[in-house]
């Protein structure tokens, strides 16, 4: 294509809204965070320069470590669990069956319920006394069995031990989006490749392992990246359902950041936390990109 000045100018005119947005709402704020992280500021007085004090405080803040631990814990369990189950479901609904669209919609439906409504509903489902989960265990006699093996009545998100597993469990109901993307990936696999493997005598497992999975690696990679970045930012669940409790068992990083900024008005300290999150996200993403080069096959 011939290059000319007009096209250069036109290109920049086309993308100018995005450039403006990037400078105002991404680049600018990041730079400002760098500045504010070195101040003490309650939003009402003038920011006061304090050097590295915020970062030193962070290094000795047990709640900071707790929130990092919780966030990593959640990521390590929820992301792989979600990916494996989403792929399984996608393979199930990738069959040519009458009514298969009904099932696709059914699995996606929890994503189409208003988010906060879903969280409030789950909070109720988890309620140790009035929640459907424990009522179900009561009705089916499973509760008696749990009590008999002296586990007792599960308290779910009302207990320190049960809160995080409860939230991971709940995340299964949100995997419809990943399922749809896996389904799209599966439908992009050329039929001939599967048939060729079949002719070569590969059974279902081998076809899955050596044809389907390698061809899906870009999808798996994409969903892992998005999933990890998403779960580093978990906020709504913790704010709406547990307020970070009990005893900080669900104090997620972004919840702690939010509380620091907008409930305690320690803006400088919160900016330092935001910078640390930025750096963590950057490192995690770069590691994933570097590892991705080894296992992702692009057709």
């Amino acid at each position, binding site marked *: 294509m011939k290059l000319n000045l007009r096209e250069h100018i036109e290109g920049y005119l086309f993308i100018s809204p995005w450039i403006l947005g990037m400078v105002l709402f991404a680049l600018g704020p990041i730079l400002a965070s760098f500045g504010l992280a070195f101040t003490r500021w309650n939003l009402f007085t003038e920011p006061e320069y304090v050097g590295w004090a915020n970062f030193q405080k962070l290094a000795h803040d047990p709640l900071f470590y707790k929130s990092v631990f919780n966030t990593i814990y959640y990521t390590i369990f929820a992301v792989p669990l979600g990916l494996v189950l989403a792929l399984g479901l996608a393979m199930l609904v990738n069959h040519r069956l009458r009514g298969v669209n009904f099932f696709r919609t059914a699995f996606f439906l929890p994503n189409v319920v208003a988010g906060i409504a*879903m969280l409030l509903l789950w909070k*109720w489902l988890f309620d140790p006394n009035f929640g459907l989960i424990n009522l179900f265990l009561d009705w089916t006699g499973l509760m008696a069995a749990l009590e008999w093996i002296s586990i007792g009545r599960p308290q779910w998100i009302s207990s320190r031990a049960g809160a995080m597993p409860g939230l991971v469990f709940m995340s299964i109901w949100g995997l419809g989006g990943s399922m749809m993307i896996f389904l799209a990936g599966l439908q992009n696999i050329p*039929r001939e490749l599967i048939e060729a493997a079949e002719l070569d005598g590969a059974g279902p497992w081998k076809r899955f392992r050596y044809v389907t999975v390698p061809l899906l690696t870009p999808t798996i990679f*994409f969903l892992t990246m998005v999933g990890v970045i998403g779960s580093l930012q978990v906020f709504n669940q913790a*704010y709406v359902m547990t307020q970070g409790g009990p005893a900080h068992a669900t104090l997620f990083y972004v919840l702690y950041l939010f509380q620091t900024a907008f409930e305690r008005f320690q803006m400088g300290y919160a900016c330092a936390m*935001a910078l640390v*999150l930025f750096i963590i996200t950057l490192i995690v993403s770069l590691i994933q990109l570097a590892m991705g080069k080894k296992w992702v096959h692009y057709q």
Partner: protein
Amino acid sequence: MSSASGDTLSLRRQLILYAALSFLAFWFLVPFAWMLITSVKTPDEVFSRLLPSVLRLANFVEIFNQPTLPFGRYFLNSTIITVFGTGASLFTSAVVAYAFARLNFFGRDVLFVAVLSTMMLPAAVTMIPTFVLFQKLGWVDTFLPFLVPACTGNAFQIFFLRQFFKTLPIDLIDAARIDGCSNLRICLSIAMPLAKPTLATLAILSFLSLWNDFMGPLIYLHSNEKRTLALGLNAFAGMYGTQWHLLMAASVVATVPILMVFFMGQRYFERGLVMTGMKG
């Protein structure tokens, strides 16, 4: 379409599949069904009966009539933010994406890498300075912190639309150029109509995320009549926490619009995802 699912399955395998799918679908639908069922129960029946004896639609009237939390107003606020936000960001994103896909300009590829990296930028990182900016502008407790950024496009949408625009045949564009169409004209009246499945898919996703946005309204919208449904629901739960039938009725009301949008766009949704291909 060639796909890995062309076989006609034996009856036995079909039955096994139906059984497995029904079992799983049941569990996926239980929470939503419980919400629907509870929303039409009387307060007494919430725990005493599995299914309601009568459909108590009065619950829906009641939530709109209670004086402290104006649900109708919340509904309108969410609608304004979501509809305008989706429309504005998709339009801008399409124009920006078209340039990245189809125009040659200096630094294009470097800038596209910048698009990709803003996709990965956690919102929490920019949250505080952005709040300070909007506060200085006097935009706190208005809808502007939602409407103005929407006009600058969205990295996800730019990325996916660019992938789509790249697949358009070059002949089509050249033919339009020879006919004297400007680039903007080609983008708006040729490329965008062809991108309908992708646009519909992105519109659904954007609608979902704006309608469900909680942290944004929590930070920016403080007065009662400015609240969105997401905030209103949470406030409602705080006030009427144990009136499950009312809370579930309110939840159903908050869910109906996104369900409608989803079912309207659903026929494009899967196709949009397949076409996008997710191939980086």
